[in-house]
């Protein structure tokens, strides 16, 4: 059909926003609040959604995904919490050191890759560190619906426990906090045992924690479909390499600290994307030819596709070798 052909833009719909608050929570984490620049209401969303923030870092465009952590029913503002990563690629540092109240920024419409299973009789949340953010929105949503939930939140120290006081004050019987420096650990096996039929578990945190929850749940006989996780991968740095873009008829150098997707975009070639974290599948790209080895890091392609070299997810994956040609 071609009723009104329009070219699809890469990425989700954009919303121009103004930074309305910058609230340092502790040594590592700062909350940023946004209002819509046009004064309209934000779209509501479901807990677990993220937004991609566009940062203009002295001419270099950075696009980082962050979970929306504000109450989804409050359409007057959006909030994200950003953990500073001094060894990262610079997006979180930019947010911490450069973004001020009153700044104009652009964020995307909510994108949902980590949703509540609304059939669940009970929602069991496991958070590690900054992984608390999607649960802040999920909890607000479930509270409004009289949902049955319980949070187990692991943090390094009391000083680094973002939102611990607020959560404990509001929900003293539902929130359980564990401090690494006091040798406290989530009693996962006990918790997974004895949950009512129809309970669903959700985990957001470091990769090790996600794997631990999945493996422990599986060993305890939980169906995999009732264990949900979200892990955003940041693109890892790697050796520079060269890529040939066949459709665009150009050759691009991928630098040590940029992703293949960023290099393609820098060359002015429009490529689809949504999450920029290896999870959503939007940037899937066909490989035309290659001589070398892929460093696949995504959660999207299956093992067979990783092995046969037919596709690559340029948001997080890289290449080492003599030559790489992509259908882009």
């Amino acid at each position, binding site marked *: *059909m071609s*009723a009104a052909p329009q070219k699809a833009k890469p990425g989700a719909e954009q919303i121009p926003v103004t930074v309305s608050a910058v609230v340092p929570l502790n040594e590592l984490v700062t909350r940023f609040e946004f209002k819509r620049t046009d004064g309209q209401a934000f*779209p509501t969303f479901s807990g677990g959604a993220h937004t991609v923030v566009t940062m203009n870092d002295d001419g270099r465009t950075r696009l980082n995904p962050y979970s929306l952590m504000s109450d989804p029913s409050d359409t007057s503002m959006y909030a994200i919490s950003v953990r500073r990563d001094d060894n990262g690629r610079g997006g979180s540092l930019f947010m911490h050191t450069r973004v001020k109240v009153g700044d104009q920024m652009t964020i995307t419409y909510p994108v*949902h890759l980590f*949703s509540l299973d609304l059939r669940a009789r009970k929602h069991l949340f496991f958070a590690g560190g900054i992984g608390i953010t999607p649960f802040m929105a999920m909890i607000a949503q479930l509270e409004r619906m009289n949902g049955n939930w319980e949070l187990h939140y692991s943090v390094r120290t009391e000083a680094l426990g973002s939102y611990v006081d607020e959560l404990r004050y509001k929900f003293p019987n539902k929130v359980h906090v564990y401090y690494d420096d006091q040798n406290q650990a989530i009693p996962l096996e006990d918790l997974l045992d004895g949950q009512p039929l129809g309970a669903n578990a959700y985990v957001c945190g470091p990769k090790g924690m996600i794997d631990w929850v999945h493996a422990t749940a599986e060993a305890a006989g939980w169906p995999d479909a009732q264990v949900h996780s979200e892990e955003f991968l940041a693109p890892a740095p790697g050796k520079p390499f060269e890529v040939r873009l066949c459709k665009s008829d150009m050759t691009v150098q991928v630098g040590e600290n940029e992703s293949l997707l960023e290099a393609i975009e820098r060359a002015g070639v429009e490529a689809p994307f949504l999450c920029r974290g290896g999870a959503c599948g939007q940037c899937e790209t066909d490989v035309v030819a290659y001589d070398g080895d892929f460093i696949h890091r995504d959660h999207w392609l299956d093992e067979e596709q990783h092995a046969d070299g037919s596709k690559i997810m340029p948001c997080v994956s890289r290449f080492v070798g003599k030559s790489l040609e992509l259908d882009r």
Partner: protein
Amino acid sequence: MTIQFNEETFRDDYSFYNSDWAIKRFPFPFHEDSYMYSVNMEQHRGGPEGSVYEMRFDVDEHYVSEMKDRAMVLADDPLRCQSLPHMTLAGWDLLELIMVSKSEDYPDLFELHRDGDHWRWINKPLGIDDTFTFLDETTLPYGPMEYITRQAQGDFCVLDQRDEMLWMDAGMVTTQADWSLDFDIGMNFFEWHAPVPLAHEMGIFKRALKFLLNIQQGAPARRLNWTMTVNPLLDTSPENYHKWGIQKTTLTPENIGAKQHLRVELQTFFRLPRSNALVFPIRCYLISFQDLVTVPKWGRRLHRVVRDLPVELATYKGFIDNRPLMLDYLGKFDDGQPTSPGVFPDLDTEPPLGNAS
């Protein structure tokens, strides 16, 4: 814009008709002289002024009579509307989407006044003025999905999204092309599409699912689908096949122009915000062959498409037995001249009908 609503029926005496306005804006589904499946998706963000693509939910001259027909179908068979328990939130999402869209797109017909969760909804064509509390289903006469889809043309499938899959977990389905919500409820995307020929082998559904799972808030999509219906029946359901199936044998060379209808579905897809469900409205448009051939380009093209359609598709769409009769009729409106690309009538530029076969 003011719409004159037709007094008409989609059963018994079949007084359904299209005005000249409705004929010219009919969503003709063939952009070229042949047809094969494709994932023919495009963004649903408006379209040419006055076309069925312009608004988020098109309202036309058939609105009031279609809603009366839906009420009759539901009175006979309440299982045409079902919502599994976890889909109530998606129902509220849908109610909000339709009320906001219609009140913004047709302010002379619909009004929505919101004060927090205290809402007032005015539907002038149907004479409704209700006040209720958003997210409190005890304040509405029906569940939220049923309430609003009794006031919106087209069928509505509300699909839950879990485990990288879509599930037919709620819907209002009274104007369907021979499929049953009661049969499909709770099925996943591949299960409810299982009866479709050829498309599975072509990988159509795998690609379509991937596309649909990725439809984002604020970025709805649409496509067209089509079939053939004898008599202007909205309810061509399997439940009532014994009533309408037999009517396919009543075609004659004399009555085919009036009785045979091209049935087109404008399918749209919207991500729902609170539930992360996907709503899939399927809006049915009917046009008789005799009205359709008043547009010379469409007459030429429909003849060629029906003539060249693979047997499997003509069988699946239920008109293989009537195809010779259709071709005899449509051939009279195909003079062999080339047609312009695209779906629109192009009445000013396409030549009038010359000597046909």
